[in-house]
């Protein structure tokens, strides 16, 4: 019999010790209680004040007991459901589970046919959703663009209306404010079978962005209130630049951005205790020479791993970042930066890793990058799954059985394990030279482009219910009227 025997079910990786996490957490509590944040939303300030926060003009200071109460009610584990009931597309949030998906709202897109950068249009949302639906290692959907060929105020609503019928993977939605949040919500609950059914099986997540340093803007807060009142799982994530809008040191930026996210946490948990909440965000450096927020910097991955550990220490899921690059095209740089950040994100077990497919510092979305990263995620997941140690996998008996000079090629043990122990890439080529040459010496870049086009030509996502299709038409027609009549 064994005692005190420990098992590692995956590869272990840690940035901080428990003592360090405690110090970071105390830093967050200090910022919230002693420095406070500006909340540009009167109703939110009133809600917070009634719950015991100190409000002075716009400045809101949250006492520690309020933060701890919010942490106690916000769940660590929950499920976001595929809209069509396909359990393979459900997302189970919980310890040791990293999920991946594209990112929101760049202005430009790499055209899948011409391969040129151009403004993002509505049909690109169809393309992204269809490809996401087909990729085995992409778990949730975002659009990789801001639709430019619809009335500006309806860009977010049209995006959701276009993507929702094309993928059953949960969508992470963004919006401008209350009205388009509601358009999106109406579409989602129609498919779910009403508000109550949605509350039992939420099928999308809402995304809001406060402002660094230390400001909860009206729009961001208003959307959190919308989400809380309608039981929509919500992400409240900053996008801070170390050395620009946040301290230059990783520990400092982690404290500041966590405090910024926690304002949303506290507010959401006061309105609806138990609402699934993701803390954020995008933590990276301002390149002090190129003057951009870098999406390909190693510090991004390192700081994201650190903030993930802090979130998990606090018992919250985290909105991770990876699979992105500062490169302008699908090249070696894009592959290097994207793959390493995907791997780091997988190791940290951050719960929803977004921006898979961001290029050019977030200015251009590329579904080709997402398709390439699908292989990098598969690769990473094989590593993070780790090495199982059991009498069977130790294989001492098998080694005895085969002995010197033997082979394992069709041994029972090999037959039993080779399909699950080995991971096979979809895109990386492992053929020998002759075979590769015979197939036309294709590069990775060419295979990525071919696969993307092939998915678009062949993949048919499971459709929405007929009443949802009708609802989408009606909701968007009403939305068009609303913006037309706007002064």
């Amino acid at each position, binding site marked *: 019999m064994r005692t005190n025997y420990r098992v590692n079910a995956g590869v272990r990786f840690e940035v901080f010790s428990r003592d360090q996490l405690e110090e970071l957490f105390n830093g967050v509590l200090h910022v919230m209680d002693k420095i406070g944040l500006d909340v540009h939303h009167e109703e939110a300030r009133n809600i917070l004040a009634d719950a015991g926060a100190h409000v002075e003009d716009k400045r809101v200071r949250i006492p520690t007991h309020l933060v701890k109460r919010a942490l106690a009610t916000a769940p660590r584990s929950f499920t976001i459901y595929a809209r069509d009931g396909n359990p393979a597309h459900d997302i189970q949030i919980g310890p040791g589970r990293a999920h991946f998906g594209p990112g929101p709202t760049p202005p430009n897109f790499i055209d899948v046919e011409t391969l040129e950068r151009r403004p993002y249009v509505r049909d690109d949302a169809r393309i992204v959703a269809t490809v996401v639906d087909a990729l085995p290692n992409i778990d949730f959907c975002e659009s990789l663009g*801001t639709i*430019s060929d619809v009335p500006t105020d309806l860009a977010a609503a049209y995006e959701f209306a276009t993507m929702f019928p094309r993928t059953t993977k949960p969508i992470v939605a963004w919006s401008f404010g209350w009205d388009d949040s509601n358009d999106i919500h109406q579409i989602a609950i129609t498919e779910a079978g009403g508000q109550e059914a949605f509350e039992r099986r939420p099928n999308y997540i809402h995304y809001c962005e406060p402002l660094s340093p230390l400001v909860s803007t009206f729009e961001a807060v208003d959307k959190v209130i919308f989400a809380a009142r309608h039981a929509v799982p919500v992400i409240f994530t900053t996008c801070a*630049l170390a050395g*620009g809008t946040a301290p230059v040191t990783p520990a400092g930026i982690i404290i500041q951005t966590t405090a910024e996210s926690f304002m949303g946490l506290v507010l959401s948990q006061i309105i609806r205790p138990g609402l699934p909440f993701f803390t954020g965000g995008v933590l990276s450096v*301002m390149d002090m*020479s190129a003057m951009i927020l870098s999406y390909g910097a190693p510090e991004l991955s390192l700081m994201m791993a650190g903030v993930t550990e802090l979130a998990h220490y606090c018992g919250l899921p985290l909105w991770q970042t990876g699979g992105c690059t500062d490169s302008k095209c699908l090249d070696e740089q894009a592959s290097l930066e994207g793959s390493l950040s995907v791997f780091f994100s997988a190791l940290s077990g951050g719960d929803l890793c977004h921006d898979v497919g961001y290029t050019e510092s977030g200015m251009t979305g590329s579904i080709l990058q997402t398709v390439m990263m699908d292989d990098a995620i598969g690769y990473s997941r094989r590593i993070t799954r780790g090495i199982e140690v059991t009498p069977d996998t130790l294989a001492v008996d098998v080694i005895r059985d085969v002995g010197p000079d033997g082979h394992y090629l069709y041994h029972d043990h090999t037959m039993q394990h080779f399909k699950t122990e080995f991971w096979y890439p979809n895109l990386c080529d492992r053929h020998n030279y002759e075979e590769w040459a015979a197939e036309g010496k294709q590069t990775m870049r060419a295979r990525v482009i071919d696969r993307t086009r092939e998915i678009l030509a062949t993949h048919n996502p499971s459709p929405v219910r007929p009443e949802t299709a009708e609802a989408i038409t009606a909701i968007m027609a009403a939305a068009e009227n609303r913006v037309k009549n706007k002064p």
Partner: protein
Amino acid sequence: MSQTLEQITTGVIEGNIQGIRQLIQKALEEGLKAEEILQNGLIVGMNEVGKRFKVAQMFIPEVLRAAKTMHAGQELLHPLVTDARAVRVGTIVIGTVQGDMHDIGKNLVGMMCEGAGFEVIDLGFDLSPETFTEAIKVHQPDIVGMSALLTTTMRSMGHTLKAITEAGLREKVKVMVGGAPVDAEFAARIGADGYGHNAVVGAELARKLVEAA
């Protein structure tokens, strides 16, 4: 060249905000003219900073500190010069347009312009067209700078330009625009006088715009 002037040049390059005032005082006591201190001390330093930044020998925080140092020196010299324009190249009013809260890029442009010898009035972010027109009336700037980081707020730049024209102020100011999604074509389309794709180019553009005026 005077040793003190060399120290002033080095002071700017090193971003010695505290020391620069003393150095300038010393130079004045040595009998140097304000114009000389400016041209052969401060500006020489700032030009060197610009050169070093371009070849990645200096980085943004260092450049901004140098700009602040330069500015502190100018403030001291301003009352002493005969031609005020020698010290203050011009005045810029800058801000991020309505609906937009991205301000880091705009801050950088403002600080770089300060380093280039401008008096910069930073209005902040999410600014209505009226805020811009009012600020033009109050501060009488040579240049108005607008920043937008969202394709959805780029239209506010057009609205602001229209408001400036309608208020009868368009002839009085040059307008420059920037921000990640903005490009030269868009700037031309809305009738701006110039576009800069980064803060360094922005400051160079500002100088060109006042020189052309």
